[in-house]
Protein backbone atom coordinates (compact mmCIF):
# COMPACT_ATOMS: atom_id res chain seq x y z
CA UNK A 1 0.00 0.00 0.00
CA UNK A 2 1.17 3.43 -0.79
CA UNK A 3 0.34 5.37 2.33
CA UNK A 4 -0.19 4.54 5.96
CA UNK A 5 -3.67 5.99 5.79
CA UNK A 6 -4.70 3.48 3.14
CA UNK A 7 -3.02 0.70 5.06
CA UNK A 8 -5.05 1.52 8.08
CA UNK A 9 -8.29 1.56 6.11
CA UNK A 10 -7.42 -1.93 4.94
CA UNK A 11 -7.18 -3.36 8.44
CA UNK A 12 -10.09 -5.00 10.17
CA UNK A 13 -11.89 -2.57 12.43
CA UNK A 14 -10.40 -2.91 15.91
CA UNK A 15 -12.13 -0.88 18.56
CA UNK A 16 -9.21 -1.24 20.98
CA UNK A 17 -6.52 -0.33 18.44
CA UNK A 18 -6.73 3.40 18.94
CA UNK A 19 -6.49 2.99 22.69
CA UNK A 20 -3.52 0.64 22.59
CA UNK A 21 -1.62 3.05 20.36
CA UNK A 22 -2.33 5.92 22.70
CA UNK A 23 0.84 7.80 23.53
CA UNK A 24 -0.57 8.61 26.96
CA UNK A 25 0.85 7.15 30.15
CA UNK A 26 -0.11 7.62 33.76
CA UNK A 27 2.65 9.44 35.59
CA UNK A 28 2.89 10.55 39.19
CA UNK A 29 4.16 14.04 39.98
CA UNK A 30 5.24 14.44 43.59
CA UNK A 31 5.24 18.18 44.23
CA UNK A 32 6.56 20.01 47.28
CA UNK A 33 3.70 22.30 48.33
CA UNK A 34 3.96 25.28 50.65
CA UNK A 35 1.32 27.89 51.39
CA UNK A 36 2.07 30.23 54.29
CA UNK A 37 -1.55 31.32 54.36
CA UNK A 38 -2.56 27.81 55.40
CA UNK A 39 0.34 26.15 57.15
CA UNK A 40 3.92 26.87 58.18
CA UNK A 41 4.99 23.47 56.92
CA UNK A 42 5.72 22.31 53.42
CA UNK A 43 4.57 18.87 52.33
CA UNK A 44 4.71 16.54 49.37
CA UNK A 45 1.57 16.00 47.33
CA UNK A 46 1.14 13.38 44.62
CA UNK A 47 -0.73 14.09 41.40
CA UNK A 48 -1.47 11.27 38.99
CA UNK A 49 -2.16 12.47 35.49
CA UNK A 50 -2.38 10.99 32.04
CA UNK A 51 0.09 12.60 29.78
CA UNK A 52 2.15 12.01 26.66
CA UNK A 53 5.71 11.35 27.90
CA UNK A 54 7.01 13.36 24.97
CA UNK A 55 5.57 16.43 26.67
CA UNK A 56 7.52 18.51 29.14
CA UNK A 57 7.31 18.82 32.91
CA UNK A 58 5.88 22.31 32.38
CA UNK A 59 2.99 20.80 30.40
CA UNK A 60 2.33 18.45 33.31
CA UNK A 61 2.31 21.39 35.75
CA UNK A 62 -0.11 23.24 33.47
CA UNK A 63 -2.37 20.20 33.26
CA UNK A 64 -2.40 19.87 37.04
CA UNK A 65 -3.02 23.57 37.58
CA UNK A 66 -5.67 23.90 34.92
CA UNK A 67 -7.50 20.63 35.44
CA UNK A 68 -6.88 19.40 38.98
CA UNK A 69 -5.66 21.99 41.45
CA UNK A 70 -5.70 25.66 40.55
CA UNK A 71 -3.81 26.59 43.71
CA UNK A 72 -0.58 25.04 42.43
CA UNK A 73 1.79 27.98 42.09
CA UNK A 74 4.85 28.23 39.87
CA UNK A 75 6.54 30.77 37.61
CA UNK A 76 6.72 30.50 33.87
CA UNK A 77 6.61 32.99 31.12
CA UNK A 78 8.04 32.07 27.72
CA UNK A 79 7.64 28.29 28.06
CA UNK A 80 10.55 27.92 25.62
CA UNK A 81 13.76 28.11 27.64
CA UNK A 82 14.41 31.80 27.13
CA UNK A 83 12.99 33.81 30.03
CA UNK A 84 14.56 31.79 32.84
CA UNK A 85 11.55 31.85 35.15
CA UNK A 86 10.83 28.16 35.66
CA UNK A 87 14.01 26.72 37.12
CA UNK A 88 13.04 24.06 39.65
CA UNK A 89 14.47 20.98 41.31
CA UNK A 90 13.14 18.04 39.30
CA UNK A 91 14.10 14.57 40.55
CA UNK A 92 16.73 16.25 42.70
CA UNK A 93 18.38 18.15 39.86
CA UNK A 94 17.93 21.79 38.92
CA UNK A 95 16.38 22.15 35.48
CA UNK A 96 13.95 24.26 33.51
CA UNK A 97 10.50 22.65 33.58
CA UNK A 98 9.97 23.87 30.02
CA UNK A 99 13.08 22.10 28.71
CA UNK A 100 12.69 18.78 30.53
CA UNK A 101 10.85 16.00 28.72
CA UNK A 102 8.90 13.61 30.91
CA UNK A 103 10.26 10.58 29.03
CA UNK A 104 13.79 11.57 30.06
CA UNK A 105 12.87 11.35 33.75
CA UNK A 106 11.85 7.70 34.12
CA UNK A 107 8.09 8.30 34.50
CA UNK A 108 7.66 4.76 35.91
CA UNK A 109 8.58 6.25 39.27
CA UNK A 110 7.08 9.38 40.84
CA UNK A 111 8.72 12.52 39.48
CA UNK A 112 9.61 14.89 42.31
CA UNK A 113 9.32 18.62 41.78
CA UNK A 114 10.35 21.20 44.37
CA UNK A 115 11.49 24.81 44.54
CA UNK A 116 15.17 25.60 43.92
CA UNK A 117 17.23 25.58 47.11
CA UNK A 118 18.98 28.38 48.97
CA UNK A 119 16.29 31.01 48.39
CA UNK A 120 13.18 31.74 50.47
CA UNK A 121 10.20 29.71 49.30
CA UNK A 122 7.21 32.07 49.06
CA UNK A 123 4.62 29.60 47.79
CA UNK A 124 4.90 26.12 46.25
CA UNK A 125 7.59 26.46 43.57
CA UNK A 126 7.97 30.24 43.75
CA UNK A 127 11.07 31.59 45.53
CA UNK A 128 12.23 35.07 46.44
CA UNK A 129 14.80 35.93 43.76
CA UNK A 130 15.92 39.24 45.33
CA UNK A 131 19.18 37.96 46.88
CA UNK A 132 20.04 36.34 43.55
CA UNK A 133 19.52 39.55 41.60
CA UNK A 134 21.31 41.55 44.31
CA UNK A 135 24.46 39.50 43.65
CA UNK A 136 23.92 40.05 39.93
CA UNK A 137 23.67 43.83 40.41
CA UNK A 138 26.74 43.84 42.66
CA UNK A 139 29.03 42.70 39.81
CA UNK A 140 27.92 45.63 37.61
CA UNK A 141 26.57 43.65 34.64
CA UNK A 142 26.63 46.51 32.13
CA UNK A 143 29.13 48.02 29.70
CA UNK A 144 31.57 50.40 31.40
CA UNK A 145 33.70 52.69 29.22
CA UNK A 146 35.86 55.74 29.68
CA UNK A 147 36.17 58.82 27.54
CA UNK A 148 33.82 60.17 24.91
CA UNK A 149 31.18 58.05 23.32
CA UNK A 150 32.13 57.00 19.78
CA UNK A 151 29.97 58.33 16.96
CA UNK A 152 29.53 54.85 15.51
CA UNK A 153 29.13 51.28 16.64
CA UNK A 154 31.82 49.83 18.93
CA UNK A 155 33.34 47.26 16.61
CA UNK A 156 34.80 43.98 17.80
CA UNK A 157 36.68 41.23 15.97
CA UNK A 158 35.05 37.78 15.79
CA UNK A 159 37.94 36.42 17.90
CA UNK A 160 37.35 38.99 20.62
CA UNK A 161 33.64 38.22 20.54
CA UNK A 162 34.36 34.50 20.78
CA UNK A 163 36.33 35.02 24.00
CA UNK A 164 33.18 35.51 26.11
CA UNK A 165 30.57 33.92 23.83
CA UNK A 166 29.70 31.14 26.27
CA UNK A 167 28.75 33.47 29.11
CA UNK A 168 26.52 35.68 26.93
CA UNK A 169 24.00 32.81 26.83
CA UNK A 170 22.90 33.17 30.46
CA UNK A 171 19.16 33.65 31.03
CA UNK A 172 19.43 34.31 34.78
CA UNK A 173 17.34 31.31 35.76
CA UNK A 174 19.32 30.75 39.00
CA UNK A 175 19.59 27.00 38.36
CA UNK A 176 23.36 27.21 38.87
CA UNK A 177 23.47 29.43 41.95
CA UNK A 178 20.73 27.43 43.68
CA UNK A 179 22.60 24.17 42.99
CA UNK A 180 25.78 25.40 44.69
CA UNK A 181 26.41 23.94 48.18
CA UNK A 182 28.47 26.98 49.19
CA UNK A 183 25.52 29.24 48.33
CA UNK A 184 23.12 26.97 50.26
CA UNK A 185 25.16 27.53 53.41
CA UNK A 186 26.11 31.15 52.93
CA UNK A 187 23.98 33.48 50.85
CA UNK A 188 26.72 36.10 50.97
CA UNK A 189 28.65 34.14 48.32
CA UNK A 190 28.12 35.82 44.95
CA UNK A 191 27.26 32.48 43.37
CA UNK A 192 27.94 31.13 39.88
CA UNK A 193 25.38 33.21 37.97
CA UNK A 194 26.81 36.54 39.16
CA UNK A 195 30.32 35.36 38.27
CA UNK A 196 29.15 34.18 34.83
CA UNK A 197 27.68 37.61 34.16
CA UNK A 198 30.81 39.36 35.43
CA UNK A 199 32.85 37.09 33.15
CA UNK A 200 30.72 38.21 30.22
CA UNK A 201 32.02 41.78 30.66
CA UNK A 202 35.48 41.13 32.13
CA UNK A 203 36.49 39.35 28.91
CA UNK A 204 34.71 41.77 26.55
CA UNK A 205 37.37 43.78 24.69
CA UNK A 206 35.04 46.81 24.51
CA UNK A 207 34.57 46.99 28.26
CA UNK A 208 36.85 48.95 30.58
CA UNK A 209 35.37 48.03 33.97
CA UNK A 210 37.06 44.62 34.14
CA UNK A 211 39.50 45.67 36.84
CA UNK A 212 36.66 46.89 39.07
CA UNK A 213 34.71 43.69 38.62
CA UNK A 214 37.78 41.56 39.29
CA UNK A 215 38.34 43.50 42.50
CA UNK A 216 34.73 42.81 43.56
CA UNK A 217 35.12 39.09 42.89
CA UNK A 218 38.49 39.03 44.71
CA UNK A 219 36.45 39.64 47.85
CA UNK A 220 35.88 37.22 50.74
CA UNK A 221 32.55 36.23 49.14
CA UNK A 222 33.87 36.15 45.59
CA UNK A 223 35.41 33.48 43.34
CA UNK A 224 37.73 32.07 46.01
CA UNK A 225 34.76 30.49 47.77
CA UNK A 226 34.14 28.29 44.73
CA UNK A 227 35.07 24.66 45.52
CA UNK A 228 34.83 23.35 41.98
CA UNK A 229 31.96 20.95 42.64
CA UNK A 230 30.64 21.38 39.06
CA UNK A 231 27.01 21.39 40.28
CA UNK A 232 26.54 24.68 38.40
CA UNK A 233 27.83 23.31 35.11
CA UNK A 234 25.57 20.26 35.47
CA UNK A 235 22.57 22.46 36.24
CA UNK A 236 22.87 25.12 33.55
CA UNK A 237 20.04 24.66 31.03
CA UNK A 238 21.97 26.75 28.51
CA UNK A 239 24.96 24.42 28.60
CA UNK A 240 27.26 27.18 29.79
CA UNK A 241 30.55 25.87 31.18
CA UNK A 242 29.93 27.72 34.43
CA UNK A 243 32.75 26.20 36.48
CA UNK A 244 35.20 26.94 33.67
CA UNK A 245 34.09 30.58 33.60
CA UNK A 246 34.67 30.84 37.36
CA UNK A 247 38.15 29.33 36.97
CA UNK A 248 38.93 31.82 34.19
CA UNK A 249 38.08 34.68 36.53
CA UNK A 250 40.34 33.12 39.19
CA UNK A 251 43.13 32.83 36.65
CA UNK A 252 42.66 36.44 35.54
CA UNK A 253 42.95 37.54 39.18
CA UNK A 254 46.14 35.54 39.71
CA UNK A 255 47.84 36.61 36.49
CA UNK A 256 46.91 40.21 37.27
CA UNK A 257 49.01 39.98 40.45
CA UNK A 258 52.00 38.02 39.18
Amino acid at each position, binding site marked *: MATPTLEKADMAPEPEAGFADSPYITATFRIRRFN*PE*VSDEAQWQDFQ*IEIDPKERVLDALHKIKWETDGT*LTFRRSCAHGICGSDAMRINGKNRLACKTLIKDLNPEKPITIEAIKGLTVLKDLVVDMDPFFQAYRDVMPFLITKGNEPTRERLQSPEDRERFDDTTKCILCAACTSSCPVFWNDG*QYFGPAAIVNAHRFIFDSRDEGGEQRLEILNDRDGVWRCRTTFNCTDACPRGIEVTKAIQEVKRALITRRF
Partner: protein
Amino acid sequence: MSTETSAIGDVEGSALYDVDNPAPVIEPPRKRTGKTPKGSRTNFEMYAWLFMRLSGIVLVVLVLGHLLIQLVLDGGVSKIGFAFVAGRWASPFWQMWDLAMLWLAMLHGANGLRTVINDYAERDNTRFWLKMLLYTATVFTVLLGTLVIFTFDPNIR
Protein backbone atom coordinates in the same frame (compact mmCIF):
# COMPACT_ATOMS: atom_id res chain seq x y z
CA MET B 1 -6.94 12.06 36.61
CA SER B 2 -6.24 12.70 40.24
CA THR B 3 -9.17 12.70 42.58
CA GLU B 4 -7.18 14.28 45.39
CA THR B 5 -7.80 17.80 46.48
CA SER B 6 -4.98 20.09 47.48
CA ALA B 7 -3.12 18.48 50.37
CA ILE B 8 -2.84 21.75 52.23
CA GLY B 9 -6.17 23.13 51.13
CA ASP B 10 -8.25 22.21 54.15
CA VAL B 11 -7.15 22.22 57.75
CA GLU B 12 -9.18 20.82 60.61
CA GLY B 13 -10.60 23.27 63.13
CA SER B 14 -9.71 26.93 63.21
CA ALA B 15 -6.75 27.64 60.99
CA LEU B 16 -3.58 28.86 62.65
CA TYR B 17 -2.59 30.90 59.61
CA ASP B 18 -4.68 32.76 57.06
CA VAL B 19 -4.39 35.47 54.43
CA ASP B 20 -3.96 38.27 56.96
CA ASN B 21 -1.75 36.23 59.21
CA PRO B 22 0.59 34.14 57.03
CA ALA B 23 3.09 31.69 58.45
CA PRO B 24 6.71 32.81 58.67
CA VAL B 25 8.78 31.80 55.67
CA ILE B 26 12.17 30.14 56.07
CA GLU B 27 14.93 32.51 55.07
CA PRO B 28 18.21 31.11 53.74
CA PRO B 29 21.34 31.56 55.85
CA ARG B 30 23.14 34.92 55.56
CA LYS B 31 21.01 36.31 52.74
CA ARG B 32 22.58 38.90 50.42
CA THR B 33 20.88 42.28 50.52
CA GLY B 34 21.65 45.78 49.32
CA LYS B 35 23.34 46.33 52.68
CA THR B 36 25.87 43.52 52.19
CA PRO B 37 29.25 45.18 52.81
CA LYS B 38 31.47 45.74 49.80
CA GLY B 39 34.79 43.94 49.46
CA SER B 40 37.78 44.39 51.72
CA ARG B 41 40.23 45.07 48.85
CA THR B 42 42.90 42.70 50.10
CA ASN B 43 44.34 39.67 48.37
CA PHE B 44 44.16 37.44 51.43
CA GLU B 45 41.62 35.00 50.01
CA MET B 46 43.59 34.71 46.77
CA TYR B 47 46.81 33.91 48.60
CA ALA B 48 44.97 31.43 50.84
CA TRP B 49 43.56 29.72 47.74
CA LEU B 50 46.99 29.57 46.08
CA PHE B 51 48.59 28.31 49.28
CA MET B 52 46.12 25.38 49.40
CA ARG B 53 47.15 24.24 45.89
CA LEU B 54 50.91 24.80 46.34
CA SER B 55 51.13 23.27 49.82
CA GLY B 56 48.97 20.38 48.55
CA ILE B 57 51.50 19.59 45.82
CA VAL B 58 54.41 19.63 48.27
CA LEU B 59 52.41 17.62 50.82
CA VAL B 60 51.88 14.82 48.31
CA VAL B 61 55.65 14.19 48.32
CA LEU B 62 56.19 14.86 52.03
CA VAL B 63 53.20 12.89 53.37
CA LEU B 64 53.45 9.92 51.00
CA GLY B 65 57.22 9.74 51.63
CA HIS B 66 56.60 9.95 55.35
CA LEU B 67 53.98 7.18 55.30
CA LEU B 68 56.23 5.00 53.17
CA ILE B 69 59.21 5.35 55.51
CA GLN B 70 57.22 5.06 58.72
CA LEU B 71 54.75 2.32 57.85
CA VAL B 72 56.02 0.28 54.90
CA LEU B 73 59.79 0.07 54.53
CA ASP B 74 62.07 -1.81 56.93
CA GLY B 75 59.54 -3.90 58.81
CA GLY B 76 56.74 -1.37 58.89
CA VAL B 77 55.28 0.26 61.94
CA SER B 78 56.86 -2.16 64.43
CA LYS B 79 60.32 -0.65 63.95
CA ILE B 80 59.23 2.80 65.19
CA GLY B 81 60.56 3.57 68.62
CA PHE B 82 62.60 6.16 70.43
CA ALA B 83 65.79 4.91 68.79
CA PHE B 84 64.28 5.10 65.30
CA VAL B 85 63.14 8.69 65.80
CA ALA B 86 66.43 9.67 67.38
CA GLY B 87 68.30 8.15 64.46
CA ARG B 88 66.33 10.07 61.86
CA TRP B 89 66.41 13.41 63.65
CA ALA B 90 70.18 13.15 63.89
CA SER B 91 70.16 14.14 60.23
CA PRO B 92 69.34 17.77 59.33
CA PHE B 93 67.64 16.49 56.16
CA TRP B 94 64.96 14.58 58.08
CA GLN B 95 64.67 17.45 60.55
CA MET B 96 63.87 19.79 57.67
CA TRP B 97 61.52 17.24 56.09
CA ASP B 98 59.51 16.91 59.29
CA LEU B 99 59.60 20.65 59.94
CA ALA B 100 58.26 21.41 56.46
CA MET B 101 55.62 18.73 56.82
CA LEU B 102 54.58 20.06 60.21
CA TRP B 103 54.23 23.64 59.03
CA LEU B 104 52.62 22.90 55.69
CA ALA B 105 50.16 20.29 56.97
CA MET B 106 49.20 22.45 59.94
CA LEU B 107 48.68 25.63 57.93
CA HIS B 108 46.99 23.72 55.12
CA GLY B 109 44.69 21.88 57.50
CA ALA B 110 43.99 25.03 59.51
CA ASN B 111 43.13 27.02 56.41
CA GLY B 112 40.93 24.17 55.21
CA LEU B 113 39.09 24.17 58.54
CA ARG B 114 38.80 27.96 58.36
CA THR B 115 36.98 27.46 55.05
CA VAL B 116 34.73 24.85 56.60
CA ILE B 117 33.91 27.15 59.55
CA ASN B 118 33.16 30.06 57.22
CA ASP B 119 30.83 27.76 55.31
CA TYR B 120 28.90 26.21 58.13
CA ALA B 121 28.94 28.55 61.15
CA GLU B 122 26.05 30.89 60.46
CA ARG B 123 26.17 33.19 63.47
CA ASP B 124 28.92 35.81 63.55
CA ASN B 125 29.83 35.00 67.15
CA THR B 126 29.99 31.26 66.63
CA ARG B 127 32.16 31.78 63.59
CA PHE B 128 34.51 34.12 65.41
CA TRP B 129 35.03 31.87 68.45
CA LEU B 130 35.42 28.68 66.43
CA LYS B 131 38.13 30.38 64.40
CA MET B 132 39.86 31.69 67.53
CA LEU B 133 39.88 28.14 68.91
CA LEU B 134 41.28 26.87 65.61
CA TYR B 135 44.04 29.51 65.44
CA THR B 136 45.04 28.92 69.06
CA ALA B 137 45.28 25.17 68.54
CA THR B 138 47.23 25.67 65.32
CA VAL B 139 49.77 28.10 66.78
CA PHE B 140 50.23 25.88 69.84
CA THR B 141 50.81 22.72 67.78
CA VAL B 142 53.13 24.38 65.28
CA LEU B 143 55.26 26.01 67.97
CA LEU B 144 55.41 22.90 70.16
CA GLY B 145 56.31 20.71 67.18
CA THR B 146 59.00 23.12 66.01
CA LEU B 147 60.45 23.29 69.51
CA VAL B 148 60.64 19.50 69.76
CA ILE B 149 62.28 19.10 66.35
CA PHE B 150 65.03 21.60 67.22
CA THR B 151 65.59 20.78 70.87
CA PHE B 152 65.25 17.01 70.66
CA ASP B 153 67.82 15.35 72.89
CA PRO B 154 68.59 11.70 72.04
CA ASN B 155 70.29 11.21 75.42
CA ILE B 156 67.31 12.23 77.52
CA ARG B 157 66.48 9.85 80.35
